[in-house]
């Protein structure tokens, strides 16, 4: 409970501290210290009446201590004690105000385009998500010292690039929101695709991404693409317990036990997609969410409304120009007009440079050839794709698919 509360409050507290001191790196350290103090004291003494105010006060005090010792150090170093500048500690507000724009500005700062994806992800999880460095390191299966280094370099990049802590103007804001959504999408995918068994106790990145997307949506209510991304995450995450078998093997959508799907998440996702579409403007996340919604609403795989999915992929293709979307579009064509038409479409896009060496083209061709009743070619391509993919569960899935088609030959 306290854990949840602390993580929900983190971005508000950090936003307030950074706004006041304009020092992101030191502010972030101060907030982490305040969180640690709260985690130690609250379970023992009870949660204070105004937990956010408590955290902000402690973080501001830490910040003041930090500045005092910095100044003292500089004073010692320059040995001009007599002229030491007088440090005025900022007044500690009894009820520090919280501006939602601060929190949003914090998201924009952590997902800044100057950072690499890996750095933006790490910084967002720590500064906005309130995860500890150790938790983030475990989530990405890297040593804690490596993750600590990645985070401190990210902070250094922000400092060096002079990114100001402020709300970008309206034109810039749309682009920056795109970067925020991209980072959250990557966090979600990392959690979703990496799940294999629960024994390793990796912190749940998918749920963290959903929580953060919800937080963003409360800051920009009615934002279509934020709604779309949140819906996409919910509709995808709803299939979580059906998508892997007992040994962690991937189970494809059409073979999943749909009674295991999370109805609550599906209902929420479907409602969000509906709300987003009713506003008119259509973005990529919304369309992807709409496709997921069509799948999730089919009681059986054979009830799937493929013509609707094909129509949505055609819209998505116009919006995104991604070769992976083009491949999915080809699969939808095959489901509506037959595998031969799908294969023709794959042939037309396989030459795209961005698909060079990718296992996806082989895997899609293998699926369509299997459906077309050409098992020899399907088996060879499944095996080829298995050798190329860099995802272990996917490799295992492709190998087993090859084996079961071979067994029926």
């Amino acid at each position, binding site marked *: 409970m306290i854990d949840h509360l602390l993580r929900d409050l983190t971005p508000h507290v950090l936003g307030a501290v950074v706004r006041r001191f304009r020092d992101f790196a030191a502010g972030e350290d101060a907030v982490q210290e305040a969180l640690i103090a709260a985690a130690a004291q609250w379970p023992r003494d009870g949660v204070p009446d105004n937990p956010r105010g408590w955290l902000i006060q402690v973080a501001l005090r830490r910040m003041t201590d930090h500045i005092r010792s910095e100044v003292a150090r500089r004073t010692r170093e320059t040995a001009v004690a007599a002229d030491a500048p007088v440090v005025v500690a900022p007044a500690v507000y009894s009820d520090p105000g919280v501006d939602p724009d601060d929190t949003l500005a914090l998201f924009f700062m952590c997902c800044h385009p100057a950072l690499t994806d890996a750095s933006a992800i790490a910084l967002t999880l720590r500064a906005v998500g309130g995860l500890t460095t150790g938790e983030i390191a475990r989530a990405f299966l890297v040593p804690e010292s490596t993750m600590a280094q990645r985070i401190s370099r990210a902070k250094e990049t922000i400092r060096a690039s002079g990114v100001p802590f402020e709300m970008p103007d309206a034109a810039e804001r749309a682009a920056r929101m795109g970067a925020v959504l991209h980072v959250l999408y990557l966090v979600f995918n990392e959690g979703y695709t990496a799940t294999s068994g629960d024994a390793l106790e990796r912190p749940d990145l998918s749920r963290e991404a959903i929580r953060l997307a919800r937080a963003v949506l409360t800051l920009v209510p009615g934002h279509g693409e934020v709604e779309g991304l949140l819906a996409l995450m919910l509709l995808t995450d709803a299939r979580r317990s059906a998508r892997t078998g007992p*040994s962690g093997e991937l189970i494809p959508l059409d073979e999943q036990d749909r009674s295991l799907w999370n109805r609550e998440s599906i209902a929420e996702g479907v409602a969000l997609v509906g709300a987003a579409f009713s506003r008119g403007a259509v973005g990529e996340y919304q369309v992807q969410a709409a496709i997921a919604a069509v799948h999730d609403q089919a009681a059986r795989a054979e009830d799937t409304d493929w013509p609707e999915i094909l129509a949505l992929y055609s819209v998505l293709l116009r919006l995104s120009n991604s070769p992976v979307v083009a491949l999915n579009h080809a699969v939808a064509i095959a489901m509506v007009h037959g595998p031969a038409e799908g294969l023709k479409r794959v042939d037309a896009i396989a030459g795209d440079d961005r698909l060079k060496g990718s296992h996806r083209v082989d895997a899609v061709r293998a699926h369509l050839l299997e459906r077309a009743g050409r098992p020899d070619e399907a088996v060879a391509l499944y095996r080829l794709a298995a*050798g190329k993919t860099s995802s272990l569960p996917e490799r295992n899935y492709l*190998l087993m698919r090859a*084996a*079961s088609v*071979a*067994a029926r030959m």
Partner: protein
Amino acid sequence: MKFMLMMNAASKGGDYQIANWPKKDIEAHIGFMIKFSQKLAAAGELVGAEGLAPPTQARLVRAGKDGKPVTDGVFPETKEFLAGYWIVDVPSPERAYQIAAEASAAPGHGGAPMNMPIEVREVPSGPPPLD
């Protein structure tokens, strides 16, 4: 004491042999490997483990004259290659050998133990870790 356990697999045309097994054998093998790692982790003995992509994707890299990478590959003729490894932290070499033997007996084609060679190498303790 830390040890690296290296699993060497025979190669055929640059791909894992597992690619040609029947489905239930693949399932049994993968299931074994997942449970094996979980067991080592639960016992507090596992430091790290990774399986490697088949050698069709392997490249040999050297620095060229200007320090730029010069790559070489593919190696379909290689008979044996590293397929994966575990690093374990255990009280004695004997315990590392025991773990290696267990891994070696992973079920293979037809469900029979593969008895594949596992190279066991001590990872000597060195300077204190960074940080």
